[in-house]
């Protein structure tokens, strides 16, 4: 049984195709090429993952109505660009990085053909299905480039793809899948560059990293660490005439796309909002959210919390790290592993450190990078073993003088099964433990909330509330759908709770004046002048106090601020806080 594939880089030099064959790589027909691609290992992995994740996404959307609000918001941002009463690109907003929103746009164009794309958030889910499929594929190729034989390679890929966190984030419309996809692709090409030194590989890694930054901020940390690795590796090659110049040149090529994305996004943000880094500093950004909602816990608690999360996500991590360090000190480890550690570990370190510094929430999903990290670390060790074995074999053959068939497997079935068992022992436990973490209300705060009602035998109060999420915003949505209001009649801040979900549910979203409309501030200051007759405002507690209407009129929710009168109240339901709808009868200035 041949379990290894021949890898092009292992052809002996000089083994060119036979003379007399004028077209060694004559192209075959389009159909033949695609037929081969689909039947290849990668093609099968793509199809299987896609179908599986698609089923998960459809179940979450249609059966359980699970829509994490961050995911809905990102889709809604794209929706504002295309379908708000003031469609313009800047409506995409600058609190979240744009790629997850941009990626939903092609699907949103078909909303009139299939309403659930927006009303049930299917557009966002499709983006995560495709992205996670891409992540699985990139991981597989990364292991293949490394030289991991097929059996352990497929096993490692499966352990990644079947992890419950991966499955959930492959269907729920959040940005994690896209981030994993872009970051693992970055890894794959960076590792390839470390191996072949080809500037093209480096440029592909660089472009993927730029895209990763457009998906999530943590990519900036990955860029920092990976940049250092690129510089050091390039410098140590001792290129002539100047290693320093070669290193700077490689670093520039690696950094340029990231820098372009980083500066381009900051520039756009600065031009439109006046803040280059709105994702951190805006009225709605992370810092503001933490200031309002962050639980006050001390450093020791935060440290322990991180350890706990790491253990749930990758229980054998410590053992794996020890083994990797042993292999490295024995010279059995490919140096490419440091490229992977820099990209994925660099990004993870950002979340770890900022939580220790109390700047972000300790969401379990921030630790999702541990899954590819442990898979790739174990993959690196398997690759190291294979390389050592092949080397020993080659030496033995050189001494024995026996010739071997090119590309034939040198690895016994016993060796491969041992590798597979080691993989299972080291990574297998992640699957049940991650699932346990997701349903631990302290570790998996979000996941417990979002999925508890599906899996719990006895529903908690929280579970029951989540079940109400969808009902919450469809109630508000139905109210406005039935009122037949003219365009631009209701002002509302899309920041609060479930407003983006309401917005993407109603058939006539243009009735709302929203935060991203260019006249929003002026409308809030004096609605009547702009023909706006209603103000929809959430209860000013918790994050609700950051909301624009509450900031402008602190007494609006409680008593109408003197220029409006109460029309309707929406009770709290699921993620929706209590909302009140006020009718404006005069100008706020006339009230004084």
């Amino acid at each position: 049984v041949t379990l290894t594939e021949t890898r092009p880089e292992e052809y002996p030099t000089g083994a060119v195709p036979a003379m007399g064959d004028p077209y060694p790589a004559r192209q075959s027909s389009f159909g033949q090429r695609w037929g081969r691609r689909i039947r290849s290992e990668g093609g099968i992995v793509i199809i299987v993952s896609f179908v599986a994740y698609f089923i998960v996404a459809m179940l979450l959307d249609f059966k359980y109505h699970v829509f994490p609000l961050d995911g809905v918001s990102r889709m809604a941002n794209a929706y504002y660009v295309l379908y708000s009463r003031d469609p313009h690109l800047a409506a995409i907003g600058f609190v979240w990085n744009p790629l997850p929103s941009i990626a939903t746009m092609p699907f949103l164009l078909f909303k009139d053909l299939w309403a659930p794309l927006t009303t049930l958030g299917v557009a966002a889910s499709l983006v995560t299905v495709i992205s996670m499929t891409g992540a699985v594929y990139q991981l597989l190729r990364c292991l293949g480039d490394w030289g991991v034989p097929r059996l352990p390679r497929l096993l490692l890929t499966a352990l990644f793809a079947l992890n419950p966190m991966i499955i959930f984030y492959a269907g729920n419309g959040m940005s994690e899948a896209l981030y994993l996809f872009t970051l693992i692709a970055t890894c794959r090409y960076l590792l390839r560059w470390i191996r072949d030194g080809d500037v093209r590989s480096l440029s592909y890694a660089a472009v993927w990293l730029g895209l990763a930054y457009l998906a999530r901020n943590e990519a900036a940390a990955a860029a920092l660490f990976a940049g250092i690795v690129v510089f050091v590796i390039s410098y140590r090659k001792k290129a002539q005439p100047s290693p320093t110049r070669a290193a700077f040149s490689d670093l520039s090529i690696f950094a340029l796309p990231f820098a372009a994305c980083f500066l381009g996004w900051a520039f756009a943000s600065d031009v439109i909002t006046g803040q280059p880094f709105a994702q951190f500093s805006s009225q709605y950004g992370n810092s503001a959210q933490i200031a309002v909602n962050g639980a006050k816990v001390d450093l020791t608690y935060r440290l322990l919390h991180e350890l706990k999360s790491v253990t749930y996500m990758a229980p054998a991590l410590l053992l794996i790290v020890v083994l990797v360090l042993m292999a490295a000190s024995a010279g059995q480890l490919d140096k490419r592993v440091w490229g992977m550690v820099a990209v994925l570990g660099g990004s993870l370190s950002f979340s770890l450190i900022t939580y220790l510094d109390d700047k972000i929430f300790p969401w379990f999903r921030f630790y999702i990078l541990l899954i590819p990290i442990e898979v790739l670390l174990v993959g690196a060790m398997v690759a190291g073993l294979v390389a050592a074995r092949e080397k020993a074999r080659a030496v033995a053959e050189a001494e024995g003088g026996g010739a071997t068939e090119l590309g034939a497997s040198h690895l016994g079935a016993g060796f491969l099964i041992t590798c597979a068992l080691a993989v299972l022992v080291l990574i297998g436990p992640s699957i049940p433990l991650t699932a346990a973490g997701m349903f631990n209300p302290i570790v998996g705060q979000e996941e417990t909330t979002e999925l508890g009602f599906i899996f719990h035998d006895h529903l908690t109060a929280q579970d029951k509330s989540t079940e109400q999420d969808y009902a919450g915003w469809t109630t508000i949505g139905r109210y406005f759908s039935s009122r037949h209001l003219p365009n631009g009649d209701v002002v509302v801040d899309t920041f609060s709770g479930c407003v983006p979900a309401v917005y993407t549910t109603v058939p006539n979203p243009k009735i709302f004046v929203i935060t991203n409309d260019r006249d929003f501030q002026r409308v809030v200051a004096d609605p009547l002048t702009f023909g706006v007759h209603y103000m929809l405002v959430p209860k000013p507690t918790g994050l609700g106090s950051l909301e624009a209407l509450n900031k402008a009129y602190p007494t609006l929710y409680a008593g109408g601020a003197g220029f409006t009168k109460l029309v309707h109240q929406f009770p709290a339901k699921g993620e929706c806080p209590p909302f009140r709808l006020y009718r404006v009868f005069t100008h706020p200035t006339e009230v004084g």
Partner: protein
Amino acid sequence: MRRVLMPPAEASLRLEASTNGLADRVPGLSARRVLSFGQLIGIVLLFGLFFVVLVASPVLAVTIFVSFVTVLYVIAIVYRAYLYLRSTRSHVVEKISDEEARAVPEDELPFYTVMIPAYREAAIIQHLVENISRIDYPIDRLEVLLLVEEDDAETMSQLMQSDPGPQFCVIPVPAAEPRTKPKALNYGLTLARGELVAVFDAEDEPDPLQLRRAAIAMSRLTLDTACVQAKLSYNNTGQNIITKWFTLEYAMWFSYFLPGLASMEAPIPLGGTSNHFRREALRSLGGWDPYNVTEDADLGIRMFREGFNVRILESTTYEEANSDFVNWIKQRSRWFKGYLQTFFIHMRHPLELVDEMGWKGVAHFTVFVGGTPILAILNPIFWLLTILWFVAHPHFLISVFPAPIYYLGLFAFAFGNFLLVYLTVLSSREVKNGQLILNALFIPIYWLMMSMAAYKGLWQMIVTPAFWEKTMHGLHPNDAPNLEQASDSVGAGRTEP
């Protein structure tokens, strides 16, 4: 040096064949006339229609124009990104190692003709002879034809004074219009005896093993490969910023775009030098078009139409990059004019072209040969619009960019500019140990120069379609010890007919 003499009657027969051979045999493919009557009518109608719409509804007219151009930009950008991705397929580049090249016994090598047109190149004759003498090829299987205009007394006398090996031979080309390099090459081709024919420029420094490599590559390739094109680079890169950018541009072309085109089996505009042909294929095509000012690009397209292939040879010829701004603009305007000429000539009968090239071939040809000069002409307009947008945010701009076009335009602006600067930065790795990386970041200034040249080329195409902007060589101090002489020839270049 030997000199070929022949009776005037024979010379004029050969001259006639070189000048009008192609045009008489296949008038449809000759640039003797650029626009066919039908094309002229078509263009007049198109402009007329646009003018009518412009008068009736200026916003609609501008919107149509802007939309069309934006789509063109997006296609050109995506196409270039794709070429870069495809360029990794190395099977299109013929690589023959030094050992392999030297190992072939002399008596197995084919007879080779090297043709070098030398018009007003007196200053660098010594240099030329030295460089070509360095070629490692048995001299009894090699002829080097130096094609000199009969009335170019200075070059002629310089050549006659030098005394290189027996393989060298001067061919006086009878003085007659059009005085173009392709006409001289055709004249040489009527006399060439080699099974393979190579073309070099007077200032070239070819890799000494290039002929051997090309001969070996050709022996391995089937007869439908009519040409292998060696890579070009510059030996005076460090001279000034123009030569640095020029070097980067060539690196991008030969490292990324050309291999990308070849891997897709697209028609390839050849470079003007260091291409190696099978003589019989070249003759069957009717040689070069003496009226086309980028006869090299045109020949590549005609080869493709006739079903011939072009491969790339891993071997570099060093040339002198144009270092003088005015001279550079002249050269580039000729290239743009030639691309436009070539585009219009082959588009005379679009359906016939589709029959011969297939839809894919025509698409490649349109984007690369037609698109390059047209975009260079349009660039300044859109740069101005972009600046206007950022500075003044005028309302009329919003009204002429429908939302989808606006987003495409934004993509072209952000991604397109980034991509081309980044590709230039990457190209800097292919030459000179990556020294040029900082220069690569300023390549947009070079694009501005290109656009200036494109306007000059467009103007010339309308006014004097067959006028050849001679590129002066020997402007590099190391090449031309006598600077005065060199600058004299620049002056001479300006007064050409």
